């Protein structure tokens, strides 16, 4: 009675045979792309020619840019890159369980403490062998950023972007403002802008991280890079007079910040700079994304946060860097290393920058001729820096910054006079978190 789909009279056992055949065909089908991928290169046979990569670049522009890099890599080496893209925030929130489970061979991540944390937990593999090949492509500051606490390399940087004070060239020209290079000049400029009926410094802290950027700038201008590192690593005390001085400076500048900032997103704050209502805005170069009109974008410029302490001048630049790491036990180690080597070349970086012009290449060898004026300036600012910081939440423990510093800084912004009790509260909580 039974008839198989092939139209032949059938019994139970031969039906099983058909199923077996179908299973075999499925295996073959899965094998075909692998085989065809093998054709391109002549390297060790039998080695699977696919490397998996977990990516957090879920936005359309970076996603496409990354896809172009991987395509170029496949073309060059014949190894296929199997990309597993997750939503940016979800990726960050799940990173713990992701890395402990069966992570992809290579994954996107951030330089700084957040990279070193997973390196120290043995959730990432050292890649010193990669760096023997790509080391020459990067300036010293980038090399320093890519090392774990044990001195081994764990990270391949791809791009970076600086934080600075952004302003409109036309506004400064029209009103005769000068770019401030010292703290006193900055305060004087703020006063002048306020008198001229402008918002001196645009500000929005609804997302709680922009305030960290302001703290970082004042802190390393006033106390230097080394203190920033010690403070972020939980070694220096938050009750230190040096930290108090940072908040005193900040409180001096606070009256010149745009009010109503607690409920404002950075995008809305950027709009006040777009509409020329605000004079300056301290943010990363990604602020340029809000300048959708070409004329406005060409009018946008930035300068480094002014000098506060002459001992440190403007030697430190906050330049968060994104890149790649190798997971703890990659299935295809050889191909993953090859991919990381490729990602560390100026070639890969240029492919990325073609698509996303709000960042600059991490490599000092990348071709800068196609850079926009903003990119050129960002590039020279970063390459001229003595030290690079990442950002408070990348240089310190994320649990400390998200549960203590974000609400803490918001509290300061609401009530600048309560600094002393705030700082001792932060210090107590810091000790508890860093002790665990």
């Amino acid at each position, binding site marked *: 009675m039974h008839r198989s789909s092939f139209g032949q009279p059938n019994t139970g056992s031969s039906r099983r045979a058909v199923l077996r055949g179908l299973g075999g065909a499925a295996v073959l089908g899965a094998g075909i792309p692998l085989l065809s991928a093998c054709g391109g290169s002549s390297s060790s046979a039998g080695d699977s020619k696919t490397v998996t990569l977990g990516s957090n670049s879920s936005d359309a522009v970076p996603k496409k840019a990354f896809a172009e890099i991987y395509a170029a890599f496949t073309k060059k080496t014949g190894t296929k890159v199997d990309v597993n893209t997750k939503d940016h925030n979800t990726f960050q929130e799940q990173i713990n369980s992701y890395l402990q489970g069966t992570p992809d061979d290579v994954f996107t991540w951030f330089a700084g403490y957040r990279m070193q*944390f997973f390196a120290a937990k043995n959730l990432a593999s050292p890649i010193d062998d990669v760096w023997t090949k790509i080391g020459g492509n990067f300036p010293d500051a980038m090399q320093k950023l890519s090392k774990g606490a044990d001195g081994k390399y764990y990270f391949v940087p791809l791009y970076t972007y600086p934080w600075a004070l952004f302003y409109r060239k036309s506004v400064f020209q029209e009103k005769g403002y000068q770019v401030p290079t010292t703290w006193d000049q900055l305060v004087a400029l703020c006063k002048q802008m306020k008198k001229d009926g402008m918002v001196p410094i645009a500000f929005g802290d*609804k997302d709680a991280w922009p305030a960290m950027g302001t703290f970082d700038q004042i802190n390393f201008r006033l106390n230097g890079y080394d203190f920033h590192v010690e403070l972020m690593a939980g070694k220096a005390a938050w009750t230190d007079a040096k930290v108090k001085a940072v908040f005193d400076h900040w409180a001096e500048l606070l009256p010149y910040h745009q009010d109503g900032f607690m*409920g404002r997103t950075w995008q809305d704050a950027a709009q*006040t700079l777009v509409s020329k209502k605000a004079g300056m805005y301290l943010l990363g170069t990604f602020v340029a994304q809000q300048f959708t009109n070409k004329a406005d974008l060409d009018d946008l410029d930035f300068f480094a946060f002014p000098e506060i302490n002459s001992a440190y001048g403007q030697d430190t630049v906050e330049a968060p860097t994104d890149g790649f790491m190798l997971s703890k036990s990659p299935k295809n180690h050889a191909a993953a290393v090859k991919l990381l080597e490729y990602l560390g070349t100026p070639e890969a970086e240029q492919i990325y920058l073609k698509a996303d012009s709000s960042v600059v290449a991490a490599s000092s060898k990348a071709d800068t001729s196609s850079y926009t004026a903003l990119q050129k300036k960002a590039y020279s600012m970063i390459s001229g820096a003595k030290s690079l910081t990442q950002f408070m939440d990348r240089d310190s*423990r994320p*649990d400390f910054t998200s549960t203590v510093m974000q609400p803490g800084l918001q*509290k300061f912004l609401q009530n600048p006079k309560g600094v002393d009790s705030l700082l001792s509260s932060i210090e107590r909580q810091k000790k508890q978190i860093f002790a*665990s």
Partner: protein
Amino acid sequence: MTSETTTESPEAADVPPSGPAPEKKRVPQGHGRLLTRRDRFTLALMAGVPTILHVALVWVTALASIALAFTTWDGIGFDAIKWVGLDNFTQLFSDNPQFWPAVEHNIIWFVALILIPTPMGLFLALQLDKNIRFSRVYQTAYFLPVVVSLAVTGFVWQLVYNPDTGLINSIIGANTPGHYIDWIGDPDLNLWAVLVAASWRHTGYMMILYLAGLKGVDPSLREASALDGANEWQTFKNVVFPTLRPTNTVVLVVTIIEALRAFDLVFVFNKGAQGTELLSILITNNIIGESSRIGYGSAIAVVLLVISLAVIIPYLIATFRKERRA
């Protein structure tokens, strides 16, 4: 159903065994002898699977969470769990600047929901119960916010409250420098702003509960009180409201639950920034994310659990006592 089986049982005992399973006859009185092996297997499956799921997903996880509250753990590898005794709780009670405000806000949340949207819902239900015209339309309109996801509600309201482009500030002109009303950020304002949104939703919820309760009120009671010469208010106060007692209990429990699990609205609104801290948000902030503080977050969760139990246990005791008496 029960009468059917009881009529069957003597019959089954009288008739000599025609099929297999003669040992069943030896089983003395009780339910056991009524069940075939297949019945027992089905019963075990139907009661067992939910029990296993319940134990695994509710009890094991709850107990694990309580155990974790006395440890510190970053979520990476089980060997990283360290026993710290009561440290998490002492830190929570004495050093966490967000903990007590969060407890306070949860309580305010409950009190506000009981005082404003609940009477509002009752009022609306009374009006709709009078079979006025377009009653269905009103009912739908008021109930709609309950159907909409709280995350969406939060998103819509934060657009209304946006300091620069929001509806309120634009209308009253409070979006110019020096005149800002920061509905979302100002710690003196934002809890009330978000409670307006919560009440807007809760009113519809309460209305539906009371409407269902009112449908169960015997119309002859109203008639009787009308004949006795009571006016509308007296009828409501002395006749209708007392008969709504079971509904009121449900309303109370639902509102307590709503107040304790308040989360999504605030999280979308301003992520629980100063002024709107809630226990649920503190738990999330400490547990979710990279290098999480699972022990500490669990300690907050245990506090929330204790508060829930303190509220629910007296309710359950009262209910059971009533049932036993009945």
